């Protein structure tokens, strides 16, 4: 018995560690969004600041990417939900031997690397475009169109699995009953099957949107000359990072939490309603205060209030003066120290990260001609070494910790041009 208890404790401790691994990085990242430091970090803590959110909102590339991501997301939902539904229904109707072939084909996109799907979609439409002599402005080379198709290839499979699971609980006799009562096939589908599938359609649509929204591996190939939020983020993260990305992460984390809580709330309410219907009596103390505070809706409200509180705190807290103070302190320390510590200005540190802008993923696929590209011979060993310092350069800005902001008296005003230093310009 003792050893069982011991095992339980070990398992419990492991679970705690595991969830620390799961949430730790996200929490730390969220915290960095509120540090005024140029580089996303928790320690040393400079000043509490919400400026990075302004930087984020003013970033045109991120906003364009966000817009494209949303368009693509909707496109994927509109394409993959009907396809997934049709495939799930088809699965129930084909014979056994046909079924296993069909299933293998349609499930394969899940078991194939995303890059392969992206590449094959890109090539297929590029070849078609060549065959039809289409211009580069045509749909064959349109990044948004290609991304919708490429992502839908595997998102449809997810949707199909959702529908298949739901359809397994559908009693096909219901459809027969509808037909028997005189409904046409279409009527039976619309009035009986669709209402039954409604929850599954909802969750498939949400899942499709999320899968599309966060997809990178497929999109990076199919997006061609456009950009999505994910590709913009990736290029930003690869070529110099700043806490505005953390700020975006905070927004997404909060949105995710709220969605999760609402989802949980709706589930509980449904369960409670079902219970109430079973009991056939009205639950009177439904809206009692104590219950509300612990109910998911209460938690949503609390999260919302906490958000408002943060904003209020931000307006009251004078970030600019804190930064000024910090800067003075640094100036002082710098003057006291010997000039042996070379003062690296951020201006000098960041350009290093902008150099690889020629390799941004937004390079147009204007052709497959082997024209001279800067990294053509990238696989020669010596060239690899050339690439390497770039990566070290990415990690390097950490070293600039103590000198950041030194030459910038107006740090509080995060003008876009400041950002432009960090973000690689697309060509």
């Amino acid at each position, binding site marked *: 018995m003792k050893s069982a208890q011991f095992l*339980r404790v070990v398992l419990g401790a492991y*679970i705690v560690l595991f969830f620390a691994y799961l949430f730790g990085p996200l929490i730390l990242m969220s915290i960095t969004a509120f540090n005024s430091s140029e580089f996303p*970090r928790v320690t040393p803590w400079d000043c509490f600041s919400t400026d990075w959110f302004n930087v984020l909102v003013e970033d045109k590339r991120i906003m364009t990417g966000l817009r494209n991501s949303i368009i693509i997301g909707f496109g994927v939902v509109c394409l993959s939900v009907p396809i997934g539904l*049709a495939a799930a229904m088809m699965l129930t109707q084909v014979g056994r031997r046909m079924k296993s072939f069909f299933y293998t084909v349609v499930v394969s996109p899940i078991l194939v690397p995303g*890059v392969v799907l992206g590449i*094959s979609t890109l090539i297929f439409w590029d070849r078609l475009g060549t065959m039809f002599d289409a211009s580069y402005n045509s749909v064959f080379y349109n990044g948004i169109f290609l991304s919708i198709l490429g992502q839908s290839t595997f998102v449809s499979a997810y949707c199909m699995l959702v529908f298949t699971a739901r359809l397994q609980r559908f009693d096909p006799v219901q459809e027969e009953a509808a037909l028997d009562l005189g409904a046409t096939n279409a009527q039976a589908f619309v009035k009986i099957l669709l209402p039954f599938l409604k929850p599954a359609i909802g969750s498939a649509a949400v899942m499709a949107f999320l899968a599309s929204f966060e997809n990178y591996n497929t999109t990076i190939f199919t997006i061609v000359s456009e950009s999505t939020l994910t590709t913009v983020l990736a290029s930003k993260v690869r070529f110099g990072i700043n806490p505005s990305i953390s700020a975006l992460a905070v927004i997404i984390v909060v949105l995710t939490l709220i969605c999760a809580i609402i989802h949980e709330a709706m589930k509980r309410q449904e369960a409670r309603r079902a219970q109430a219907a079973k009991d056939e009596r009205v639950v009177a103390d439904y809206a009692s205060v104590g219950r509300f505070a612990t109910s998911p809706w209460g938690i949503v409200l609390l999260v919302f209030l906490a958000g408002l509180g943060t904003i209020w705190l931000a307006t009251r807290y004078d970030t600019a003066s804190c930064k000024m103070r910090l800067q003075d302190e640094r100036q002082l320390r710098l003057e006291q120290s010997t000039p042996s510590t070379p003062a690296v200005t951020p201006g000098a540190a960041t350009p290093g990260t902008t150099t690889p802008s020629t390799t941004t993923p937004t390079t147009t696929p204007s052709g497959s001609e082997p024209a001279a590209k800067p990294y053509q011979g990238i*696989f020669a060993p010596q060239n690899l070494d050339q690439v390497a310092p770039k990566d070290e350069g990415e990690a390097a800005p950490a070293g600039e910790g103590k000198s950041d902001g030194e030459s910038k008296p107006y740090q509080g005003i995060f003008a876009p041009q400041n950002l432009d230093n960090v973000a690689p310009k697309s060509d």
Partner: protein
Amino acid sequence: MALTAWFQHFFKKNGIVLSIYLMSAVLLWMVIMIILPQVFMLDFSFRFNLPPGKIGGEEDVYTISNYRFLLFGSPGNPDPYNVIDTTVFFRTILAAIFVTVFDLLLCYPIAYALAIVAKGGTARLMVLSLIVPFWINEILRAFAFRILFGSSGVINTVGMTLGLWDTPFDFIKADIALYAGLGYAYILLMIFPIYNAMESLDRNQLEAARDLGAQWWRIHWRIVIPFSKPGIASGCTMVFMLSAGALAAPQILGGPSSLWFTQIIYQWFNTGGNWPRGSAYAIVLLAVCILFVLFMMRVFKVRIGEIGR
């Protein structure tokens, strides 16, 4: 004959409108979105890299030069084979296997706790807290690890404050950040298949085994693991496939000396400007993944339907 009968039956059962919808949606997906692109990619990988004007011309013939390049490099290559690309390839495969094993060890206890030990509300809360981090963008998750493992990141700060080491340790160069990030990225895909398989395990079996005096590890080895085999196979397949095909995490967290195979493919398409060669590399990656899936199906004796779930 049987096919026309089937079509007749199909149309009769669903009516014209519904039949057309089902047929066209499924055909669009299967043919235009899945099969044809793969066929075109395969075809393209056997062609020379020609400028647009020459495509379809007389120079546009089949070649295996792209595959040969992966193995032997360019004709002027002094080495007997393409050292860089093949090294990257095998390192990617090995690293993906490593990540898979890491995730399996990491997730098995959690899946067990979730399926067997935890009850009602706790289990639901755990499931929810497992899912929530995975609604957050893949790039942002990698970014979080970048912050965590950076030279002025939390781990270095804490380690140095505690006096464990005194100069910032470069976790990124040592690939620790990459493995931690990749392992993190696919936790969910390992836990849920195992959890689904384990959940249907009859708890009485465990009671009985315990009653017969079996130690905990024997219970796992003889009862729980064999029972959750399809889930383990499914989880491992997914994690392997996704790590081998990962692009974002290696780009963001990869050390300077450790290129991922997908990065090479990406460079052929992007800066390298040689799509046929990129296709050939992608085909190789695809083949490895298919082989791995077949291997898992063989070893664990599961069907593809069980893996896809």
